[in-house]
């Protein structure tokens, strides 16, 4: 067994840190002892460091399965930036040629990120089989259980895949898992002995506020007040790209702040620039949909505002957990207008195939099978191909719908509770909390004091809006003499 001192010495040498963050050491030890491990560590703990560290200790490859393709390339860029040049991602975003090239030279890589559906491809899987895998990581493991636009039925295949790969040591990582979710993850991953290392979900340096409105005008007014008043930088989350665009334009019009949108419609070029402008404090506020930020590492975000309430408490904790990674005081707001949840109920209806649709698909499969399937049809088809009967599939989706509605109701419970918000949140993750104070949340009739918490912005903006520079001066800045 390796001593804590040895582990720390290596940490200093490789990463320049004196100490591990909460949970890191325990999880690393468990893996190095060869245990399959489920790590539930709060947002901002530095989960990447865990498998990067282990990667340096072992001979074989580290394979990371991650559900969010759009963020995988960010993670690869980050690993490379951290000096791990032998890192690659295999996703459907790769061109066919690039994919062939990577698969052929897979043994040249140390860290390989792969999306679940790519791992279900025979050629990809066979190529992994030929390599020595020292650690198999399932990132965002709660997605095994969660259902949403990013849900992939292929995650359910992981049990089989781990077996085919000869059961390498497996690490499951998540920031948010209630006891129910933990047992669900364990059941679906199907490994007999899993060490669970669970730390509190609580982020004490993030104050929690829920503000309720009766009209959109009031909500917007409060938003404008907050973006002017709060210390920047910050993120505003939206459930819809359209609203994100509109509100972003509106804030630009009403303030002198640097505000940009960031969501799936952006091209790669804009995405790159905005991400780096934001990381380098050139942008005050990002208006984002929920896909944003999971790949980026920015530790001085002071506020996260939810313009629309999230679909469940897991997403909420993930998103607001972007704030205050540096440990300094930060704040999370949910701006709730009565009946906002209707939007979320509609999302559920839009994501889950109805009974009629399932019946129609099963009854007309022969006529339809050569067509391109939309998202819902692809889902139904997945189950059909696995040999599920029509009524089984109807039951599965009915069950899913109920789960989603239950999760949404929990979220709504948090929004509406008059009691301590943090207590409510942590109770959901099976934790006790009874230390409510003036910096905790705006439940229990508490008025949060932004000034006292140092959350009020002195100057107006991090940077004045981008100036039009002349080309000669740009060329001079680009190259050092």
């Amino acid at each position: 067994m390796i001593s804590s001192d040895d582990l720390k010495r290596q940490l200093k040498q490789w990463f320049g840190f004196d100490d591990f963050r909460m949970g890191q050491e325990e999880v690393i030890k468990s893996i190095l002892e060869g245990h399959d491990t489920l790590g539930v560590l709060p947002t901002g703990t530095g989960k990447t460091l865990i498998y990067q560290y282990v990667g340096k200790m072992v001979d074989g490859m580290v394979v990371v399965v991650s559900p969010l393709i759009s963020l995988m390339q960010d993670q690869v860029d980050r690993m490379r930036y951290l000096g791990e040049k032998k890192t690659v991602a295999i996703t459907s975003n790769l061109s066919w040629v690039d994919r062939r090239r990577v698969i052929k030279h897979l043994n040249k890589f140390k860290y390989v990120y792969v999306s679940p559906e790519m791992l279900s491809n025979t050629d990809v899987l066979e190529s992994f089989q030929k390599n020595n895998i020292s650690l198999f990581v399932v990132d965002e493991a709660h997605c095994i259980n969660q259902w949403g636009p990013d849900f992939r039925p292929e995650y359910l295949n992981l049990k089989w895949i781990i077996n085919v790969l000869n059961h390498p040591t497996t690490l499951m990582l998540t920031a948010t898992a209630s006891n129910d979710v933990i047992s669900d993850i364990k059941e679906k991953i199907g490994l007999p002995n899993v060490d669970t290392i669970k730390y509190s979900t609580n982020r004490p340096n993030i104050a929690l506020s829920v503000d309720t409105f009766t009209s959109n005008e009031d909500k917007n007014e409060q938003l404008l007040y907050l973006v002017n008043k709060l210390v920047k930088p910050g993120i505003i989350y939206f459930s819809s790209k359209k609203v994100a665009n509109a509100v972003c334009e509106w804030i630009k019009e009403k303030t002198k702040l640097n505000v940009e949108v960031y969501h799936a419609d952006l091209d790669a070029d804009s995405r790159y620039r905005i991400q780096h402008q934001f990381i380098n404090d050139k942008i005050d506020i990002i208006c984002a949909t929920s896909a944003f930020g999971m790949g980026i590492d920015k530790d001085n975000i002071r506020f996260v505002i939810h313009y629309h309430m999230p679909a469940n408490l897991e997403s909420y904790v993930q998103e607001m957990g972007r704030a205050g990674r540096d440990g300094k005081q930060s704040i999370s707001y949910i701006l709730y207008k009565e009946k906002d949840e209707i939007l979320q109920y509609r999302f559920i209806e839009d994501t889950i195939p109805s009974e009629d649709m399932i019946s129609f698909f099963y009854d007309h499969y022969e006529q339809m099978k050569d067509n391109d399937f939309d998202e819902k049809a692809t889902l139904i088809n997945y189950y059909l191909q696995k040999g599920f009967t029509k009524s089984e599939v109807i039951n599965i989706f009915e069950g899913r719908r109920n789960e989603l509605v239950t999760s949404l109701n929990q979220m709504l419970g948090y929004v509406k509770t008059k009691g301590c918000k943090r207590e409510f949140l942590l109770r959901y993750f099976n934790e006790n909390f009874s230390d409510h104070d003036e910096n905790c949340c705006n439940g229990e009739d508490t008025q949060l004091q932004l000034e006292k918490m140092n959350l009020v912005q002195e100057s107006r903006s991090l940077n004045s809006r981008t100036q039009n520079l002349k080309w000669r001066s740009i060329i001079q800045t680009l190259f050092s003499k």
Partner: protein
Amino acid sequence: MIQNLLNGKRTVSTLFWAMRYGLLQYSAILKTYDLNSINDDINKLISDGLAKQVDEYQYQLTHKGQIKKDSVMESFYILKNSSYQYDYDVNEFKARVLLAIQSVSEYSFQNKNYYPVKTDMKSAMIVKRWFIENKTKIVEQLKKYLINYLAQIDEHQADIIAQQMIGHEVYGMTNGQLADSMNISNVEAYFMEYDGWVNFINYIINDENTLLHPLVHDIRTLKMNNHAIMTYQQFISGNTLNHISKNLGVKLSTVREHLLEMAIWLPEDKFPYSMIISQDDEKILFESFENQSIDDWQFKQISEKYDIDFFEFRIYQILRSKQDDKQ
């Protein structure tokens, strides 16, 4: 059809109608531009009383809309670099040249840890090889190259190109930021950028200084697809359609589509129309459609009476379009 054309989807039918509307040179110019919001934009025009819907696929400007269009057009920046001959992979070039500038910039600051500009692997490899081969004097050389180029083009365009450059602690402007800073629409900013990059590509290709040649060799390509060119070459050297089909291992219908595509792209005298339409058939076709506008011709007007197939009919339609254009 127009959306397909701008996106670069080149079915024969899209190309044919693009030729009829005189839009061929705009093919693929918006390949990477996000056209998702187009329906919202159309609805906005309708609700503002600027346009009305004719049927499922057609919209018409109202009188108010026409006036608005004329006033917008007066100052609106329209793409200048449209070409009948070449496709420019502007996005790939841009990513490549930005990566090249970034890597040299970071190198000049002796910084090895940075997030490289996103490109595909091929482009990353090309830039890497280029960087290694030129490493010794690369900072001086590239800086000089850029200054030489930017100094001899329009000052405003030079600023636009430079504002997009990425390097050590420089992240440049997005299309949206560029548009905001000039107080113009995103599409106009996109066109300005596009023109700027195409000019730069052409400059590099024709420049005696070969420093940036490796970055552009596959960026400018012919619009006509290679298979169609092969079919065309076999055809003008005397092969029958059946022979070509066998020689190239493609379906007869594909051979016909290739020839239609070539006829659309090539000037009238470069395409052997008489090898497809006999003089007798040409006479029949001429007389059948004598007083009709080409857009209104219907194949069924002749298909039952004469032994002329759709392929000949379409080829003749293309021929007549080319002749009309000359008048």
